[in-house]
């Protein structure tokens, strides 16, 4: 079972799949950005996969890698009881992917989340509103280069000085440099 979904999608869309691997029973598929919508539609409509429940879309900011962002779609099938994870790499210069709310209506919330927190835009749907931050907010706070204490108050405040509070990069420090651990995408490719 564990590589079934990978095989099925790789057979159907040989051009779309970059990588696929299965780790601890979780199947993950890295696909090309241009093919996201058709792969998503196939995942939902195919009777063998039957991935009708979209759990989430989230985004990972690999700040020092070259397509910088990675969108992670987590899908679940209620009838077949299996998960599938789709990953799409998105470059920083052009952070646009096709919207999947025509496939799963419930992804609307998560696409708004990805726009609000990471600044990834979604094409083929109406305008995306911020989800949690206010409209006056500038920038996207979960990007790794957003300042840690970059607060943007809406109303006047008493000018209490910020005092240094515990460990962590203080105001004004650059993003922390991190070692590069081996990533799951370096696991064997089944294509």
């Amino acid at each position: 079972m564990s590589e079934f979904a990978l095989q099925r999608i790789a057979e159907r869309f040989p051009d779309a799949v970059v990588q696929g691997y299965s780790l601890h029973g979780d199947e993950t598929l890295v696909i090309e950005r241009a093919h996201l919508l058709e792969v998503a539609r196939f995942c939902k409509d195919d009777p063998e996969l039957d991935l009708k429940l979209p759990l989430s879309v989230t985004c990972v900011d690999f700040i020092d890698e070259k397509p910088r962002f990675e969108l992670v779609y987590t899908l679940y099938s209620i009838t077949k009881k299996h998960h599938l994870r789709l990953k799409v790499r998105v470059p920083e210069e052009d952070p646009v992917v096709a919207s999947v709310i025509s496939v799963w209506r419930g992804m609307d919330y998560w696409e708004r989340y990805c726009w609000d927190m990471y600044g990834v835009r979604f094409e083929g749907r109406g305008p995306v509103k911020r989800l949690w931050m206010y409209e006056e907010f500038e920038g996207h706070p979960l990007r790794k280069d957003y300042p840690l204490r970059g607060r943007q108050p809406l109303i006047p405040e008493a000018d209490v000085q910020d005092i240094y509070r515990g460990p962590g990069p203080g105001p004004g420090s650059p993003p922390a440099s991190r070692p590069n651990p081996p990533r799951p995408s370096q696991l064997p490719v089944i294509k």
Partner: protein
Amino acid sequence: MAENFQAITTRREEAQGFIERMVSRGLGWARKYSLFQYPFVTACCGMEYMSMAGARYDIARFGAEFPRFSPRQADLLMVVGTVNLKQAPILKRVYEQMAEPKWVIAFGVCASSGGFYDNYAVLQGIDKIIPVDVYIPGCPPRPEQVLDGLILLQEKIQAQSHKLIDRHPPEPELVRPAGRDLVSGVNK
């Protein structure tokens, strides 16, 4: 003659002062035992607020029995939980809608100082936008701590001077954060 007149007026002022003090003490006594709270509950501290307002700890013993869900009927604003920057204008507006005399309790470390949410979205203590009378520490505070804070507030109210006709107190000094540098956090 003039000296006598002076003496008489002095005694009249003293007498007036005595009556004012008595009125003030009476009003203070009445006000400290009839605190109508407005619970501005935003986060997990609300659970502790419920246990404190419920039968076991029973805030009604201290005269603060009724939560009023209209700020115009309340005279104690309890800010219970994390206040983030998106919500700060709402809190300020609720405070401004309350009629004088009014008091504020910061319930829990989030309301007092932002707590451990030292990030891009959370107001670092409600005293940045409204004046606060009593800060209750704890995450969340035990109900005993809250009752202790309430008793502190009652003592404070008793010690304040109350008048039958009162003036509006001066507004605290606030600055516009327009030119704040996001990276260093200082005003330009």
